């Protein structure tokens, strides 16, 4: 067996983290993307910029601020302590929260693009056919934006799997709690265990390639763009 128990635990933790993050982001990102796609509000630009920040920020910067915010003296930390939850750094919950912020643009932007592409006229037509806004969203918008949801889910998942800097900053390296695959690879390399590092790194490479290949060949919207 080329993978140790610690490797398997890291893989399992990574999948758990990515799945949970993707699910949470789809739920929270959908209304945000909808708002960004439809609003004419003046601060739309500001919100868009904030959402896109993780694309350009070094993960260590994002991780540093999150560490401070979630720490015992930070605003988030005070909140979680008041709620009796303790502090979030170096916990799985903290990692999920950080991953959600880190992968936010990868979910919001494909959704926003898909929503923008839906003609306003179809929403109006639905309204004149007695469909309430929520009804219209689930029966017109969601089916029409399905390729966007697929892209958002895949990119959100894959990006969370590939996360390293943020995890290191706020999660540390605690087996079965915060030690994800990317951190495990780093450990192997540090310990000069190159063959173990090869198995995990190669696995990540194949996984990422397969995911993107599936995205580009199965998703009609992506196929048109390329």
């Amino acid at each position, binding site marked *: 067996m080329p993978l140790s128990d610690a490797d398997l635990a890291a893989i399992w933790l990574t999948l758990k983290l990515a799945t949970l993050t993707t699910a949470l982001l789809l739920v929270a990102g959908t209304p945000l993307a909808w708002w960004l796609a439809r609003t004419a509000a003046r601060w739309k630009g500001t919100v868009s910029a904030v959402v896109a920040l993780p694309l350009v920020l070094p993960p260590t910067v994002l991780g540093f601020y999150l560490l401070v915010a979630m720490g015992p003296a930070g605003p988030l930390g005070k909140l979680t302590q008041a709620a009796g939850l303790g502090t979030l750094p170096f916990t799985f919950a903290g990692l999920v929260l950080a991953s959600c912020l880190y992968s936010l643009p990868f979910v919001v932007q494909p959704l926003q693009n898909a929503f923008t592409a839906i003609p306003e006229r179809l929403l109006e037509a639905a*309204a*004149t056919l*007695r469909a309430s806004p929520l009804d219209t969203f689930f029966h017109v918008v969601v089916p029409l934006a399905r390729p966007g949801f697929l892209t958002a889910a895949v990119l959100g998942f894959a990006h969370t799997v590939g996360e390293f800097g943020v995890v290191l900053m706020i999660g540390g390296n605690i087996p079965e709690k915060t030690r994800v695959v990317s951190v495990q690879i780093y450990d192997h390399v540090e310990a000069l265990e190159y063959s173990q590092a090869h198995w995990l790194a190669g696995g990540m490479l194949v996984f990422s390639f397969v995911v993107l290949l599936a995205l580009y060949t199965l998703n009609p919207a992506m196929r048109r763009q390329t």
Partner: protein
Amino acid sequence: MSADSIELRLQLTRTNFALDVALRLPARGVSAIFGASGSGKTTLLRAVAGLERCARGRLDVGGEVWQDSAAGIFVPSHKRSLGYVFQDAALFPHLSVRENLAFGRRRTGDATPPDAAAVVALLDIGPLLDRRPDSLSGGEQQRVAIARALLAKPRLLLMDEPLAALDEQRKAEFLPWLETLHDELDIPVLYVSHALPEVARLADHLVLLEQGRVRAEGALAELLPRLDLPLSHGEEAFVVIAATVGAYDADYALARLDFAGQSLWAPSAPRIPGAAVRVRIQARDVSLALAPHDDSSILNTLPATITALEEQPPGRVLAGLDIGGTALLARVTKRSSAFLGLTRGKTLQAQIKSVALLD
């Protein structure tokens, strides 16, 4: 307020455009909203549908208040029982024709949803039911869009230039459907158009919009001959007369059309006496003579009195005529006008070179 009319008073201001309209429209038949592009026709229609949230005013459709800004009432579009046919049909691309039709029908909140089979038959879309909207022609899409709107059981049907996206041939194919609809529907229709020939065939009532305001409104037959309105100023100016078929002469393939104590003969396919028809007479097809001629090829000559005259430079004169209570337009050259001594109140003979049956 009243169960048999649509009363609206709507205002909407945008940069470079203001809509300010007060109307009371009949609760039966087709009311055409006619005007140049940019006159506010579509905006008015959208405001009636509740799609323009910034419109203010009051809207009462057959006793149901859909909007009363003073009282803070704004019924959202999805709670107004209306049907809206968009210029580009706006069918849902992810649904088949059948599912598109079911979309509104399922949401009427009615224990007995309208009979889909009857509407499908009326618009002849049975063979299209399992197709996808993107595989339909423009005319087919519009027929599906109309059926979809009707199946939502509207109290008011709004149509925004449903022919605009069609080429001339498709238009010609599609107009008869609209005419059938006009005869079969018992709900009022607001029909936005900038094409007068279309309006002449479909409308009973006409609202003339100019820069967001109502320039004139009334029965179609009464507005068309008015010299003070731009309707009579175009090259194609015409009047529409509601007539009944009095007789049909199979030897000459001519129908006698009776109206208000007058008759006209017009070439026609066989017609059943008693049928109601619309007759269109263009101003350029009416010439004037001081005495009746019986040595001319013109079939129809009627005694007429000049009610109004308007010079139309260069070199032409438009005359409003009264033929026993029915209005007619005649366009002659300025020279003929001077030669015949045309003045208001003068009685002469109107020679009608061509009469078109519209339905």
